[in-house]
């Protein structure tokens, strides 16, 4: 408490972005680990019941992507929502108010070029930049991870090629590093050719950016790696980063089983008392 009786000035919120090389919202262990991380980051800002919003723009707002997001978060302690820019006609949303009231905004994968084009048309990027400065966690995978950087390697036009991002994070990013050799090769060539140096992320590897400085690498699957990619004497080099392993929590079904067991145990006890 400061001496003059006024409340201390609120600390500047830490800007956080989580970029993931690739994952799904499934019930498989590494996907559950990613969901758990997203929930944890959201709770660090929003408490026990954080607000989490998906922007599925890069997919063209497919109902598949939206449904899998709700399947992953619907039963958890949080308030999930989605903004479908292609469905605003049927489901209007006050874009700015809604986004700035979130604890975490998650950007799904798809076409990076379309993502940025549609965001520009709806002026979403400037809102997300404000959100970031306010400490709202920004997260995403694939196109939804590369969009925050100066540049990425997109397959939006079929073949992998360089595309400019929002440049909120400096440097570049290439996703699906282990799974798409074509994309990786295009990235290495681009970095050797002058693209800002950056990172390669395997599926289930991630980088968490908190405040200024270097990101911490995370992995939700054994063997999934994050690489620092830079250019030396006109040649791109990759060096793997030490990464923290994220264990998968018990699956939802198991959690339900445990809850069911507890209910039965309670009922038995009561029955015992009554009987």
């Amino acid at each position, binding site marked *: 408490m400061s001496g003059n009786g006024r409340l201390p000035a609120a600390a500047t919120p830490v800007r956080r972005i989580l970029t993931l090389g690739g994952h799904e919202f499934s019930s498989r262990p590494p996907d559950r680990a990613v969901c758990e991380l997203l929930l944890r980051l959201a709770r660090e800002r929003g408490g026990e019941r954080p607000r989490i919003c998906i922007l599925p723009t*890069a*997919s*063209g*707002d*497919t109902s598949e992507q939206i449904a899998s997001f709700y399947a992953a978060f619907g039963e958890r302690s949080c308030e999930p929502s989605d903004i*479908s*820019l*292609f469905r*605003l*006609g049927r489901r*209007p949303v006050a874009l700015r108010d809604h986004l700035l009231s979130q604890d975490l905004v998650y950007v799904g994968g*798809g*076409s990076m*070029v*379309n993502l*940025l*084009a*549609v965001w*520009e*048309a*709806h002026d979403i990027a400037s809102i997300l930049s404000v959100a970031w400065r306010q400490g709202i966690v920004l997260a995403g995978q694939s196109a939804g991870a590369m969009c925050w950087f100066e540049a990425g390697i997109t*397959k*939006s*036009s*079929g073949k992998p090629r360089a595309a400019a991002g929002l440049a909120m994070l400096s440097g570049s990013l290439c996703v699906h590093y282990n799974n798409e050799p074509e994309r990786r090769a295009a990235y290495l060539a681009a970095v050797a050719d002058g693209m800002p140096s950056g990172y390669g992320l395997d599926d289930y590897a991630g980088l968490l950016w908190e405040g200024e400085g270097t990101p911490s690498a995370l992995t939700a699957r054994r063997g999934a790696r994050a690489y620092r990619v830079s250019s030396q004497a006109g040649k791109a080099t990759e060096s793997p980063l030490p990464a923290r392993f994220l264990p998968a929590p018990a699956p939802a079904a198991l959690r339900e089983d445990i809850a069911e067991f507890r209910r039965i145990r309670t009922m038995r006890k009561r029955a015992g008392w009554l009987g």
Partner: protein
Amino acid sequence: METTPRQIVAFGGGGFSMESGNPLLDDYVLGLCKAERPRACFLPSASGDADHYIVRFYRAFSAHRCEPSHISLFRREQGPTDLRRHLLSQDLIYVGGGSVVSLLGVWRAHGIDSILREAWEAGVVLCGLSAGSLCWFEEAVSNFHGDAKRVRGLGLLPFSNCVHYERGGKRQSDYIRFLREGLSGGYAAEDGAALHFVGEELSRVVASRPEARGYRLDMAERRVVEMQIATTYLGDAGAMPAAPVPEALSTPAPSAAG
């Protein structure tokens, strides 16, 4: 050398997207193509390339009456790699409904805007409903989301455009307000009505419903004048096929709307 006219058919609303079981507008645009089995390409970009919409297109434009295709800009790894070549080889390009703002954003990102102008100039018939109508004009009155907005379109047609028009409704009052604020004059079409342009001139208004109409709206001495345009109902015997010849604008029922 024979020159092919530039043609755009802008639906206020209708066709397979909105009028299941009423193929009149879709038949009309296919009828404008000279080819026996026209090549018809669907651009569902305004819907985010929704799968169910693409399926409905293929159902309506089945292979026995045309050579259908589509371009999904969200899944470029599938479909034609050379967008320009594919689009310029079509007889008909059919643009679906959805968000006109998103549509134009995605098109620009893939260079579709300039390809469509080229296609139009080469005689490929361009058509579409809702967002797929608004996009061809200089400026659009978009009611897609929240308050009505003025949206700059591709500008192939030097007019403003309003779709799903309803006299006495919000669309009309918004359009009139924008005209007073300096929007250039243009055309409105009700659901079921389609504005057929040859070159930059309105050739005729056709309709898939007997009561559907198109309108011309202009400022005249600080007043907005709305004129109903004589409309050909395509369900009447003999209404088909279309004659792509510019006709004089007929305005049988002029009415001052403000």
